[in-house]
């Protein structure tokens, strides 16, 4: 730890080839999701039964679905929903988990023991079961699925933060802030949490993709985004009956989802490679 801090700053390349490629993929998808629907002449939810199941053409770049909606526009709007929901779910889990983990680790004693058992339990219970239970209580929809995912998801971040705080707690600068008469709340929020958020944040970058996949899976099963709104998962599901006759409906949203996963994975790979090199 001391070595890492005291080492003079070396000039390292910020981006490796991997992270540059991954970053480009993710940037293109995000840009398309934000700008695409604004430029598209087609409203994402307007049906036109006379133009149903049209193959890709200059009018409809990625064809139309069974009720004549433009697949490209719909997929890009769906990507927006998936991205926002994925990031929101992960951010909420990260924030809640880090704060709870930090508090209990700093406080120690019975509170730490009790919350750690809750964390163990939350991690041990199958993820989807809790999400399905939440949907059963709150009703189907993206928000219910998101809430269900946060209910389980915070536990991992709490565990990460707890481990970090336990190592940090005996550090002299924490002792120093205490000797300055800081309250425990101030020490926790302004000195402990900023120091433990980084490993959680690293984990969260991968977790965003996992969250989007789970959200898509729930929508695929019909528990997530409800018609007429569609995210990537529900568009894939809607195209499934026509896979042999109209392949274009499910393909584009699936490709977007895969591209995001591969892109984020590459960014992460690149950064871990850089860490090993330096």
């Amino acid at each position, binding site marked *: 730890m001391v070595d890492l*801090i005291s080492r003079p700053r070396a000039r390292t390349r910020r981006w490796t080839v991997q992270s540059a490629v991954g970053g480009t993929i993710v940037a293109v998808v995000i840009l398309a999701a934000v700008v695409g629907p604004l430029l598209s002449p087609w409203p994402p939810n307007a049906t036109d039964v006379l133009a149903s199941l049209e193959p890709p053409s200059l009018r409809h770049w990625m064809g139309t679905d069974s009720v004549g909606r433009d697949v490209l526009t719909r997929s890009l709007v769906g990507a927006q929903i998936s991205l926002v929901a994925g990031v929101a779910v992960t951010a909420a889990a990260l924030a809640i988990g880090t704060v709870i983990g930090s508090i209990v680790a700093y406080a120690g004693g019975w509170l730490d023991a009790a919350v750690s058992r809750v964390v163990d339990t939350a991690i041990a219970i199958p993820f989807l079961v809790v999400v399905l239970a939440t949907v059963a209580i709150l009703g189907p929809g993206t928000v219910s699925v998101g809430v269900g995912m946060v209910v389980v998801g915070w536990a991992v971040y709490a565990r990460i933060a707890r481990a970090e705080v336990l190592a940090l707690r005996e550090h*002299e600068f924490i002792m120093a802030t205490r*000797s*300055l008469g800081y309250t425990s709340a101030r020490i926790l929020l302004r*000195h402990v949490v900023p120091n433990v958020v980084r490993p959680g944040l690293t984990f969260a970058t991968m977790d965003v993709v996992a969250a989007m996949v789970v959200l898509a899976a729930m929508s695929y099963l019909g528990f997530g985004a409800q018609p007429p709104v569609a995210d990537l998962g529900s568009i894939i599901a809607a195209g499934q009956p026509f896979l042999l006759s109209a392949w274009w409906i499910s393909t584009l949203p699936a490709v977007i989802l895969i591209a995001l996963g591969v892109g984020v994975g590459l960014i992460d790979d690149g950064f871990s490679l850089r860490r090993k090199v330096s």
Partner: protein
Amino acid sequence: MSDVRANTPLLEIDDLRVGFGANPASASLTVHGVSLRMDEGRIVGLVGESGSGKSLTCRSILRLLPDRGHIVSGSVRFDGRDVLGLSRAELLAFRSKQVGMIFQDPFSSLNPTRRIGSQMVEALRLALGVSEETARGRAVSLLDEVDIPDPAGKLRMYPHELSGGMRQRVMLAIAMGAQPRLLIADEPTTALDTTTQAQILRLLRRVRDENATSILLVSHDFGVIAEMCDEVVVMYGGYVVESGPVEEVYLRPRHPYTRALIAAVPTLEVPDRDYRRPTIPGPPLGTTRYEGGCPFAPRCVNARPECRDVPMTLVPIDDVHAHATACPFEGRVSA
């Protein structure tokens, strides 16, 4: 100033016992009844080897004990006030305004994720209740006072951009921000190289001379203590074994441990090539079970059977100086 005030020592620790365990009643003691007295504007040294209880003693002043550590009994009075009886809010105010503390490892005593300026401003605003702007100006002058070049520029830096000596100066600046009456320096130079060490020590003395701040200087280096302090308290195994004015103790040590400690301080003159500096024989602290009596007995060259049962109380040696030793056989053995 009234006579009462003049007679009240700034800090008075009386029969302090500190132990570790689930609760104070079952705690096993590591500090066995330390008494210490500091007057305003004095530098008092607390010297002893690792595990002698010197750090725990000075942390007890701020009630900053590690996990499962408890003050079992005794009292700590600061300017006549009972520190151990302070409420939570009073304790925070006491830590923030009355006492400053600097630590052994300047590499880990600043928050690595925040700029020097933001850390100083936070401490100053809390201690002095001033605005962001005022605190920033004060931070610049504080850094200037501890001889940091380009103070305004340093405020924008992160701790890792500064050297160890610079960081210790920043720590000192933060600790002195509220102009505390007592500065606790827990081995402030142990992690620094010799040249930097001398600079920091000089700085500490200047702080005392200019602000009349009392300093409790913890060290295991008798050379540092002899150089810096007015009075010295020697600890071994959780007991005070000797205390007195530093020149008295240094020139006429009256406890075998103190004598061994002083003999171990390196000097430039070496009698001949084969000369080996004396070391303290026997098992170091913490490797043997403490069975009462004098904790130094297993390593003492003058140990005798009675050492097992001696009461570890400080007995004054002469009336002129406040020089006292816990060894009842001193004076009889060859000095």
